C-alpha cells in the first residue's frame, strides 16, 4: 500500500519536473528571491534559463523512466517503498541544484544527492560490495565537497554575494583559487581523476539507480556547475587549462580501464567517467561553442547511457549476473539475442550511439565537441591553444577506445564466438572475473525471457530519444570532422572484432588493476588513518588519561606521606611541639629586634 503510494507520488513528481521544463521553455531567463531581509533572502534564491530547462527536461524524463522501470525491476523485493522515496528525494535534490541561484541552496541539493546516492547504492546492504561501495562513494565526494565549500567561500566573499547571478567574472588570482576549489567538488561529484574510483565501485546498487544517478544526473551535476558558472570560470586564468588536463587524462585512462573490465555495468561505469571527461573537455575550451557542445553531449549521453544501464539491468535481472563469464554461458549459441530481442535491439542502439556510429545522437554530439576543439585549437593564440589541442587529441583517442570497448561488449555478450574455446583470456567456465559474489545469485538454468513491460517501455522510449535527439543539431555538422570521427570508430571497432573472431580477450594487468589508484589510496589514505585512529585512542588512554590518573595518584601519594606523621608515639609529637615553640620564639626575637 505504502509502496504503491510512493510509486505514484514518485512517478508523478518526475513527470511534473518534465512538465515544468516544458512550461519554462519559453520563459525569459530570470531570478527570483523571496522578499525577506537577512539570511533567508539570499538562501532561497532561484533562477531559470535555458540551461535550467535543459537539465529539468533531462532529470524529469530520465527519472520518470527510472521510476517506471523500477516497478518491474524491484518487483517482489523488500524495501521498495523506501527505495522509491529516496529516488524521489534525489530527484527533488537534483531539481534544487539546477534551479538554485544561491550557492548554499545549490550545495544543499548537491550534498543531498550524495546522500541519496549513498543510501541507494547501499540498497542491498546485505552484500559486502554494496556496503563498501556506498561508503567509498560518499567519502570521496565529501572530500571533494570540502574544496567546493571553500570555493564558495572564496568566490562569495570576494564577490560580495553568495548568489550566482551576482558574481562578477574577474581575472584576479582569488577568482582562480576559488574556481579551482570549486573544481575539487566537481571532480569528486563527476568522478574525474583523481577521485574517479568510486563510480565503478558504485555498481552494486540497483541498475535503475545506476542509470539515474551514476549516468544521467548526479554525475552530470559537475558538468552543469561549470556550465552554470561558465563566465566566472572563463575569466579566471588557468582554471580551464587545469580542467582540460584533467579531462584529457581522465578520458583516456577511463576508456582504457573499460577495455579490460569483465562486467557489463563496470564497463558502462568507466565509460560514463570517460564521456563525462569528454563533456568537461568541451567546456574546458572556454568558448561558447565548447560549452554548447559539452551540454549537447550531456543531453545525448543522458539518453543513451541511461538506456544502456537499464538494458544491463534487464540482463542482470533475468540472467542473474552481468559478468561476461556468466552471460556467455547463455550467449554461446546467441541465446540472449533471440530470447531477449527488445533488450538486444535497444542495447545495440545504445552502444552504437556511445561508440559514435553515424546517424545516432552520440555521433552528432561527439562531433560537435571535436569541432569545437578544432576551432578553439586553430583560432587560439599560442599559450591558450595547447589545452584545445590536448582535448582534441584526447577526444579522438577516446573515440577509438570507446568504439573498441563498445564493440567488445556487444560481441561478447550477444554473439557466440566463432573461434574454438581456449583463446587468450576468453571467458571459460572457470573464469569468473572479479564479480564472483554476484554469481552466487545466478538463477538455476531456466528459459530466459525478456524483461517485463514495465522495464521495456522506458528502454524503448530512451532508444527512440537516442535515435532522434541528434538531429536537433544535425545542421551544424562539419563533414570533415564527421569523416575523422568515423575513421576513429573504424580504428577502434575493427581490432575488437578481430580479437573476438579469434576468441581472445587480452586484458593487460595494469588495466585490470585500473592503474593501481585504489591500491594507492588504500595505502596512502586508509591505512594511515586507521593507524592514526588507533594511535589517538592509545594516546587518550595512556597519555592524557595517564596525566589525570597521575594527578589522582599524586594526591593519594601526598596523603600517604602526610599520614606518616601520625606515628602514634607521644614523644614524637612533643618533640615537634618543642621545636615549633623554639622556632616561634626565635622568630619573635628576630621580628622584635
Amino acid at each position, binding site marked *: 500500500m505504502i509502496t504503491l503510494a510512493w510509486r505514484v507520488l514518485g512517478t508523478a513528481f518526475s513527470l511534473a519536473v518534465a512538465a515544468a521544463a516544458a512550461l519554462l521553455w519559453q520563459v525569459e531567463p530570470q531570478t527570483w528571491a523571496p522578499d525577506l531581509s537577512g539570511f533567508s533572502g539570499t538562501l532561497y534564491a532561484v533562477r531559470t534559463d535555458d540551461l535550467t530547462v535543459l537539465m529539468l527536461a533531462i532529470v524529469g524524463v530520465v527519472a520518470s523512466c527510472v521510476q517506471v522501470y523500477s516497478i518491474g525491476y524491484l518487483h517482489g523485493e523488500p524495501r521498495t517503498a523506501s527505495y522509491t522515496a529516496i529516488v524521489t528525494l534525489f530527484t527533488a535534490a537534483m531539481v534544487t541544484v539546477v534551479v538554485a541561484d544561491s550557492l548554499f541552496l545549490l550545495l544543499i541539493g548537491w550534498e543531498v544527492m550524495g*546522500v541519496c546516492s549513498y543510501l541507494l547504492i547501499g540498497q542491498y546492504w546485505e552484500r559486502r560490495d554494496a556496503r563498501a561501495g556506498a561508503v567509498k562513494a560518499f567519502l570521496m565526494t565529501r572530500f571533494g565537497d570540502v574544496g567546493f565549500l571553500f570555493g564558495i567561500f572564496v568566490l562569495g566573499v570576494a564577490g560580495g554575494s553568495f548568489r550566482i547571478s551576482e558574481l562578477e567574472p574577474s581575472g584576479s588570482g582569488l577568482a582562480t583559487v576559488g574556481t579551482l576549489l570549486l573544481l575539487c567538488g566537481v571532480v569528486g561529484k563527476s568522478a574525474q581523476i583523481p577521485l574517479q574510483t568510486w563510480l565503478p565501485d558504485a555498481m552494486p546498487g540497483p541498475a535503475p539507480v545506476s542509470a539515474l544517478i551514476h549516468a544521467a544526473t548526479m554525475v552530470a551535476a559537475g558538468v552543469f556547475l561549470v556550465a552554470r558558472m561558465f563566465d566566472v570560470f572563463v575569466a579566471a586564468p588557468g582554471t580551464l587549462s587545469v580542467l582540460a588536463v584533467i579531462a584529457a587524462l581522465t578520458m583516456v585512462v577511463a576508456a582504457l580501464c573499460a577495455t579490460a573490465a569483465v562486467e557489463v555495468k563496470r564497463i558502462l561505469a568507466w565509460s560514463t567517467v570517460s564521456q563525462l571527461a569528454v563533456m568537461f573537455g568541451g567546456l574546458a575550451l572556454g568558448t561558447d561553442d565548447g560549452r554548447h557542445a559539452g551540454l549537447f553531449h550531456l543531453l545525448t549521453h543522458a539518453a543513451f547511457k541511461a538506456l544502456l544501464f537499464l538494458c544491463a539491468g534487464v540482463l542482470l535481472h533475468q540472467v542473474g549476473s552481468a559478468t561476461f563469464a556468466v552471460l556467455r554461458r547463455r550467449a554461446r549459441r546467441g541465446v540472449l539475442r533471440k530470447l531477449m530481442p527488445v533488450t538486444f535491439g535497444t542495447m545495440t542502439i545504445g552502444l552504437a550511439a556511445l561508440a559514435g556510429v553515424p546517424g545516432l545522437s552520440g555521433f552528432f554530439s561527439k562531433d560537435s565537441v571535436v569541432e569545437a576543439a578544432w576551432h578553439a585549437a586553430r583560432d587560439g593564440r599560442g599559450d591558450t591553444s595547447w589545452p584545445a589541442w590536448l582535448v582534441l587529441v584526447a577526444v579522438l583517442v577516446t573515440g577509438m577506445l570507446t568504439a573498441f570497448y563498445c564493440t567488445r561488449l556487444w560481441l561478447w555478450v550477444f554473439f557466440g564466438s566463432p573461434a574454438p574455446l581456449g583463446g587468450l583470456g576468453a571467458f571459460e567456465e572457470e573464469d569468473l572475473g572479479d564479480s564472483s559474489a554476484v554469481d552466487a545469485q545466478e538463477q538455476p538454468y531456466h528459459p530466459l525471457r525478456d524483461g517485463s513491460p514495465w522495464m521495456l517501455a522506458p528502454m524503448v522510449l530512451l532508444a527512440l530519444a537516442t535515435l532522434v535527439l541528434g538531429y536537433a543539431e544535425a545542421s551544424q555538422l562539419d563533414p570533415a570532422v564527421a569523416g575523422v570521427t568515423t575513421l576513429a570508430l573504424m580504428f577502434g571497432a575493427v581490432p575488437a572484432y578481430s580479437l573476438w573472431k579469434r576468441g581472445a580477450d587480452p586484458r593487460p594487468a595494469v588495466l585490470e588493476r585500473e592503474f593501481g589508484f585504489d591500491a594507492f589510496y588504500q595505502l596512502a589514505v586508509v591505512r594511515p588513518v586507521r593507524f592514526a585512529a588507533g594511535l589517538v585512542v592509545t594516546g587518550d588512554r595512556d597519555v592524557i588519561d595517564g596525566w589525570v590518573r597521575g594527578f589522582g595518584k599524586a594526591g593519594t601519594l601526598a596523603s600517604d606521606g602526610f599520614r606518616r606523621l601520625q606515628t602514634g608515639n607521644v614523644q614524637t609529637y612533643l618533640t615537634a611541639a618543642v621545636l615549633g615553640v623554639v622556632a616561634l620564639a626565635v622568630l619573635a626575637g628576630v621580628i622584635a629586634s
Partner: protein
Amino acid sequence: MSALLLVLLGLPLAGAALLWLLPVVLGDRIAALVGTVVSGLVLVGSAVLGYRWLNPGSPAGTQQADSVPATDLPAYDGPGRAAAMLGDTNVPWLPALDVRFHVGVDAVSLPLIVLSALLVLLCCVYSLRITPQAGRMRSLVALLLIIETGVIGTFSALDLVLFFIFFEVVLIPMWLVIDIWGDHHDRAGRRLAANRFVLMTVLGSAVMLIGFLLVHAESGTFDLVALAANPVPGGTGVPLTAAILIAVGLAVKMPIWPLHIWLPDAHAKAPTVGSVLLAGLLLKLGSYGMVRILLPVLPDAMVEIAPYLAGFSVIAIVLGSLACLAQTDVKRLIAYSSVGHMGFIGLGIATMSAVGVTGALFANIAHGVITGLLFFLAGAIKDRHDTSDLRLIGRALYARLPRIGALLTFACLASLGLPGLAGFWGEMLALLGAYEPNEALPRATFLTLMVIAGVGTVLTAAYFLRLVRNLCQGDPAQYPSTTFAVDLSRIELVTWTPLIVLTVLLGLWPALLIDRWVLL
C-alpha cells in the same frame, strides 16, 4: 517578563522539592508525570519569553545592542554582549562581596533556554514509560529538575558570581545521576566516571572563579551588563591571566582537547536521560560562557588567546574524529563526536567575528538537538541489547530494528553536517568565520586551521558511516532477529519527533535563528 523569568528559575526547584516531600511509593509512581507537567510549564514560559523577544511590546526588547564603546579596543561587534536584556531583574544580594542577583535574557540565551526546557521535557516524557533498572524515579526526576534550574540560571545570569553559582548547581545532581542510575553492570566504572566528571569540572570552575575575581579586581564590578559596556582593556598582565583562567575553566566544560577525557567515560556510564542532558545542555554552558563572558568583557586578552583556542579546537575536531574511528562502544563514539562538534564551536568563537560566533551559537543549538536524538537512540539500542558494545550488539540492525536503524542513520547524517539538516549551518559559518576572522587575528593561522577543520569533516563522515555500516548493515543471516525486541515504541516516537522535526526545520530554515544574531 521579569516575574516570568524568576518563575522559570524557581518552578523546577519547587517541582523537585514537591517530589521529595511526597512519600516514596507515591513519588516513584507519579514522578515522571510531575516532571512532565513542571517542565512543560517551563517550556511554555520560555516560549512566551521568546515570543516577547520577537514581538516586543516595550522598547526594551527592540533596542539593538549599543554601538561599540568608543575605545581603541579591537571592535568585537558580534553577538554576546549583554545589553538590552529582556526580563531584567537586578537586586542587591551580597553587598559585602559586591554580588547582585542580576538575571535577564537576550537573543543569545533565549534559544538555549528553550532548548533546555525542551530537552528536560522530553526526558521526563521518556521516563513516563521507560525507567532505568535502579528505579527511584522520584529522586531521578527531582535531580533532572534541579539540573534544569541550574542550566536556565546559568543562561540567564548577568552577574559573574551568580553565573558561577548556577554553573556549579548542576554538578552534584549530575554526579548522582551517573552514579546511581548509570550502567547497572559496572558499579566501579560508574563511580569512577562520575568522580572524574565532578573533579575535573570543579577544578576548572575553581580556576574560572579566580579569573572572575581578577576581572573584579581590574574593573571593580561583577555585573555583565556593566562589563560589556566597559570592557576590560589590556592584552597582557592581569587581564590576560584572567582570560586564560576563565578560558581554561570553560574549556574543561566544553570540553576542549586535552581536557576532554572525562566526557567519554561519563557518557558511557550515564543513563539515557543523563547522557541526553549532559551532551545537550551541560556542554553548552561552557561555550555560552565564552560567548557571554570572554568575548565581550576581555576582548584584547581574547585576541591573544584566540589562536590557541582555535588551534586546540581544531585538534579536538581531528583527534575526536580519529578516536571515533577506533571506538567499539556506541555511547563513547557519540561522546567523542561531541568533542569534535564542540571543536567547531570553539573555532567559531575563536574567530571573534560576527559570522563565526553566529555559527558557534547555531551549532550550539543544532548539536543539542542532534546529539540529544543520537543519545536517545543509543540508549534505546542499549536497553534492547543490555550492552552498548558494538561487538556484542551485532550487525544488520536494519533487519532487526528497521525503524530505529533508519532513525539512527538519519541522526548520523544530521550529525556529520549534511547540508539541508541542522548540523551544517553551524559548521559552515564557523569555517566561514575562520576564512575571515577578526582583523586583529593572524589570518594565515586561521586559514590553515580552516583547511584542517574541513578535512575533519570528512573524517566525521567516515566514522559515522562506519558506525552505520557496522551496526545497521550486514548480512542478516549471521545476526538473526531477536524476537523479543520491539522496534520503535510509541513513547519513543513521541519523544523523538520534536527533535527530528527541529533538525529538519533548522536545516531548511536556518534564518529562524541566524537572523536574530547577525544579518549576513
